[in-house]
């Protein structure tokens, strides 16, 4: 418990630093944040309206930050005057698409990584291992943009089944599972391929070490079936680095989601963020980056806690320390 609190405190500091720096970034080159927020070339009346809503924008940066943090924590996520939209409505509209892309990407990544990683380690240096190793290295070296182009050309254009560039829409799975699949499969695959290759390499490396350890030998000697040894005994002991990598990849996943949303379509939070950056919609930029950072931080925290669940040795060490 003490450990968790310690981590939580550390993450709070990280959150404050990151959101403050992002706020400073949005003010670079800007003389009057109120005017930026109102949308640049607008009349005096609108500027006055913004000034009434956000009276703190002409104060020093640190004070502005404190006001903003207070608003953020109490659920006021800012307002987009450009789009005449409350921040909270914007999240309701855009966040589900991004979450689904990220979720399916992780699912696809794991579906690829676990079988490939386990089997490569089991038949080490065999033909399957070699092919998997070369192709996963190749896929890792593909930037999301390139994967997007390849999928676009090989899948979307050839078979008229999936919506083409930018034509995907958000369809909730509970409304229409098929429509959901059509709209989300390709964007999720764009990200999932890369994740799957990274994870399969981690898993293979970890698994190779595990399979040489004594307890695997013991399990085999006891007569546990090879499948059970592999999938239960060895896999459980080998997922640590996989789990670490899932956390480390969250930041990359966000970047990838931005690309994939812009490329294929279901317009999510990443696409909205790029739009906000173009329009210098400062409160929306701050709100979205803050939410993304919270997401990264929570993912890291969860992984930290998962360690203890997966590996009893870590649990004991933390209880002692």
């Amino acid at each position, binding site marked *: 418990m003490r450990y968790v609190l310690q981590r939580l405190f*550390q993450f709070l*500091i*990280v*959150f404050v*630093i*990151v959101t403050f*720096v*992002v706020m400073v*970034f*949005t003010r*670079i*080159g*800007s*003389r009057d944040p109120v005017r930026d927020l109102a949308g640049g070339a607008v009349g005096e009346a609108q500027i006055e309206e913004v000034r009434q809503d956000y009276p703190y924008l002409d104060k020093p940066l640190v004070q502005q930050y404190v006001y903003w943090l207070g608003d953020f924590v109490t659920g006021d996520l800012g307002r987009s005057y450009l789009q005449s939209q409350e921040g909270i409505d914007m999240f309701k509209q855009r966040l589900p698409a991004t979450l689904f892309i990220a979720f399916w990407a992780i699912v696809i990544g794991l579906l690829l990584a676990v079988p490939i990683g386990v089997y490569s380690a089991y038949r080490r240096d065999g033909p399957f291992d070699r092919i998997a190793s*070369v192709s996963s*290295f*190749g896929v*890792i*070296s*593909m*930037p*999301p*943009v*390139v994967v997007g*182009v*390849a999928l*676009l*050309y090989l899948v979307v*254009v050839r078979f008229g089944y999936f919506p083409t*560039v930018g034509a995907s829409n958000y369809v909730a799975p509970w409304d229409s599972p098929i429509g959901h699949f059509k709209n989300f499969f390709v964007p999720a695959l764009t990200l999932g391929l890369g994740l799957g290759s*990274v994870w399969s*390499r981690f898993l293979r490396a970890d698994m190779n070490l595990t399979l040489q350890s004594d307890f695997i030998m013991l399990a085999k000697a006891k007569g546990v079936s090879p499948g059970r040894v592999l999938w239960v005994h060895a896999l459980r002991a080998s997922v640590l680095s996989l789990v670490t990598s899932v956390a480390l990849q969250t*930041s*990359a996943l*966000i*970047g990838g989601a*931005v*690309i994939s949303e*812009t*490329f294929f379509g279901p317009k999510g939070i*990443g696409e909205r*963020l*790029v739009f906000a*950056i*173009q329009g*210098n919609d400062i409160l929306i*930029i701050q709100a979205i*980056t803050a939410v*993304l*950072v919270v997401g*990264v*931080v929570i993912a890291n925290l969860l992984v930290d806690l998962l360690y203890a669940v997966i590996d009893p040795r870590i649990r004991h060490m933390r209880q002692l320390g």
Partner: protein
Amino acid sequence: MTDLLAAPSVVPEAAVTVDDGRTRRRLPLGLWFGIAWLVVATFHAYMASRLPWVRGENQRVEGAGRYRIGPSADFWFGSDKLGKDVFARCVYGAKLSITLASVSIVVGLVLGGSLGMIAGYFKGWVDRALAIVIDSLLAFPALVVAALLIGRFDVLQASDIQVAGFGFEWLTRRWSIAIVFSLLSIAPVARIVRAQTLSLSEREYVLAARSLGARTPRILFREILPNLVPAMVSVLFTGIALLLAAEGALAFLGYSIKAPDASWGLMINEARVDIDQYWWATIMPAAMLFMTVLAFNLIGDWVAKRFDIREAAI
């Protein structure tokens, strides 16, 4: 452990069991490919204007039917909708992308390397304070922050704001990209160097140097830094690969080099909507980007494996 080019003093276990020198000497095929690709690509990129088989960057090929023609003996990669030679633009794009990525990663190596060395060597509160800085930098969604900063730098350049009497007219896209990429590469480099320094500073020769009365700077620069070189070389190559990919992504969002100049991401973005009409204008730069990233990754990964640097391996 790889069984490659083992120096006598550090014969890896695998190489001992191998019975002859055949496998020990042979470098992996991938490494050869990586080196060959980089040599050809950089040669083309930096000599482009002197090579007779590369057309001008924005030179249009006039005449009917010169638009959107497919790959042929004359136009190796075809021509785009403005009638520009895709091959020539790929070559010119290479120069800009590779230069930006390498310059940024070198700056990142110097700054991040110093931070990582200090954190790893002094430990204690210095380490903890720097760890928070590094963690914060790593928590930034990199691509988004890059887009934000470059967008703001554009505004800064256009404005007449002066700091200490200096304006920001020089802050073109190239400079902003270089600055942003350098900033982004600090944290990952620092993390790897810190981990390496932590383990190196426990070694006997560091203890020996310290007990002989060597001062801290001497230990850092003469004992630890030389041993960090393999890790740094590995990071250099994989880092360039990452930054090339990032440049592609930024260009895709419209935050890289602007239109008349060429960059791979920009070319992909320009032509992707019409991919069903003329695939070469999108696929070719994408293939170039992929091959170059692959080449850098192959070299970086080989270095990491050769010197057994876990943190830097892919």
